[in-house]
């Protein structure tokens, strides 16, 4: 080791200093590190990845629309981040376990989430609806960074069970500042846990540009903890898929944790409550629009003669179908009865909750309607 260590150059807006396989124009370029990991991906597979991204984008649009129409309380758009969400998830096995944040709708979708899983929590019907055991996913996390430790703990469990699964956790550039994320790297490195860290650096934490969080590339932190890392173009689904395959394989084979920084962009507002015009230059948005994760795949496939109108129509159909299901899930939601607020506070009988239920039920009984019917 050289005893004097100096930081890598400031990244600031150096969004091109990344590993990449598909350029913004859809040109397939070589990368000796990444190439081997996607050697098997043929046009058919790439088309399906494109379809998933298109469906995800449509879910996102539908979420925004439903929120605007008052059907959802809030929505955290993921448009622009389809490649990292779909690409990395597809780099995992189904029995690997993911710990996403609120914005990883695409991760939940790619794991098999139901339409209701996308909307019921944002509608305020339930904190979470997804089935962790079926999807092999933790609940999307709102406490910034907290889920990274859960992923490490889960990976420690995998080690103890002796299986060859891995866990993967998703978090943002803003999250990289939280103590929990750094503790997660410490624990992961200390125990050599099979966990993959995926930092979706979408350039913003609400209004704060990434330079408030990081004076050097976020991917550069992991090696300091003993964790190999890669910085990839987060709008390039091939690069994202390859990076996850590399990272998952690293973890799966007992070599310990790995870290991916996916450089991407949040094309929409932070949430539907946010007004990005207060802090973002429209020109920046335009620059990123030119780096769209979907168009570059389409361009590449078209150039290969692998993307025709029939396929486009089929994608359109998938997206429309999903949108209809998402809408139906939102509109068809049935709010739970009042006493359900006491459900699942504890897993075992609890004298305190039992008393509260008795008391609140009696209280609700006082509101019987003309027919003596009581909603509780």
């Amino acid at each position: 080791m050289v005893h004097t260590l100096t930081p890598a150059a400031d990244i600031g807006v150096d969004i091109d200093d990344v590993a990449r396989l598909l350029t913004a124009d859809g040109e397939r370029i070589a990368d000796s590190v990444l190439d081997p990991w996607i050697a098997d991906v043929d046009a058919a597979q790439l088309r399906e990845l494109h379809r998933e991204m298109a469906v995800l984008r449509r879910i996102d649009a539908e979420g925004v629309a439903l929120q605007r129409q008052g059907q959802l309380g809030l929505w955290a758009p993921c448009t622009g981040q389809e490649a990292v969400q779909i690409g990395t998830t597809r780099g995992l096995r189904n029995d690997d376990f993911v710990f996403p944040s609120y914005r990883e709708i695409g991760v939940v979708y790619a794991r098999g989430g139901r339409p209701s899983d996308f909307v019921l929590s944002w509608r305020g019907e339930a904190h979470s609806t997804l089935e962790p055991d079926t999807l092999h996913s933790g609940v999307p996390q709102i406490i910034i960074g907290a889920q990274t430790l859960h992923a490490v703990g889960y990976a420690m469990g995998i080690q103890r069970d002796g299986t060859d699964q891995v866990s993967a956790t998703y978090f943002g550039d803003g999250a990289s500042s939280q103590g929990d994320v750094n503790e997660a790297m410490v624990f992961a490195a200390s125990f050599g846990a099979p966990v993959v860290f995926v930092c979706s650096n979408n350039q913003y934490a609400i209004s704060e540009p990434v330079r408030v969080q990081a004076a050097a590339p976020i991917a550069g932190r992991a090696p300091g903890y003993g964790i190999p890392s890669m910085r990839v173009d987060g709008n390039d689904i091939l690069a994202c898929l390859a990076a996850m395959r590399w990272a998952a394989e690293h973890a799966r084979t007992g070599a310990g944790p790995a870290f991916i920084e996916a450089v991407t962009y949040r094309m929409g507002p932070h949430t539907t409550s946010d007004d990005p015009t207060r802090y973002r230059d429209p020109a920046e948005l335009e620059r990123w629009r030119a780096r769209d994760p979907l168009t570059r795949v389409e361009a590449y496939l078209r150039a290969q003669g692998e993307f025709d109108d029939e396929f486009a129509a089929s994608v359109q159909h998938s997206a429309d179908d999903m949108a209809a299901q998402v809408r139906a899930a939102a509109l068809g939601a049935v709010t739970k009865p009042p006493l359900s607020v006491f459900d699942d506070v504890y897993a075992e009988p609890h004298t305190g909750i039992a008393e509260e239920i008795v008391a609140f039920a009696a209280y609700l009984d006082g509101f019987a309607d003309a027919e003596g019917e009581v909603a509780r």
Partner: protein
Amino acid sequence: MTQMTMAKALNEGLRRALADDDRVLIMGEDIGKLGGVFRITDGLQGEFGAQRVVDTPLAESGIVGTAVGLAYRGFRPVVEIQFDGFVYPAFDQIVSQVAKLHYRTGGKVKMPITIRIPWAGGVGAAEHHSESPEAYFVHTSGLRVVAVSNPQDAYTVLRQAIASDDPVVFFEPKRLYHAKGEVDLDAPLADAAPMGLARVVREGSDVTILTYGSQVQTALDAATAAEDDGTSIEVIDLRSISPVDYRTVTASVRKTGRVVVTHEAAREAGVGAELVASVTERCFNYLEAAPVRVTGHNIPYPPAKLEKFHLPDLDRILDAVDRVMDRPNSLTGIVAEGGVR
């Protein structure tokens, strides 16, 4: 006097504090260009610069911990925690450092830090965005804890909190951010009621309701409704929930002999428990009935669509009034049967 929202009053309070004392600075997530997710700091970075209105990295322990260092150097940091549910990562710095450093240093280091927290529910928010963590801070010796219920107090008490040499946790009911009221921006701070004083916001003779924050309005509404039954309710806005102004409280309770306490936070070991215990200790011989608490249930904050079944609303307060008045109420049959409240 100007008519303005609580959000605007807070903004004016911060502006004034920044203008009056150049050792005051504001720190938090998204408080600069964006002006905060609730726009409480709107325009302040433009006016006072990025050195005094500081967008910080996304790390609450870091925000409070660096505020401690700034206080060591003689600054008076005002910290914004973006939402109530995000104060917990800073809990160690608040409890072990902010609250204790003045004590630990034998008074040699002051911690004039104000921790602003957009607070509580009723706005249909997502998970972790509707928490009522005030009891944690009330139980923490070394802190002062206040909660505001109207624009004038928002403006004045915030300035008092910032001017205090003690750390103050300052709760802002987000449900009231857009509620308007008269604010006198020019009244001298020295003439204002001290930060620790409670206020009788409605006089009455039968029942005393003790509350704070957004529940003050709910209590007032209940008092108005109860008037129709001929029940006269006194409502006290505690304003400071640590310390509590027991002079005002006991004077009222000795008059009415009946007490209802209401807050959104869970009941168990909440601020209401302290109020009931203290009132009972101080006024036992004046009490006609056991004080009753009307609070959030002892559950994690429920999903938005169900929050109305969690929040102590007007009807639940009136039911509690019936209880302290020994009238038929929701628990009438049940209390007789067994141990249930």
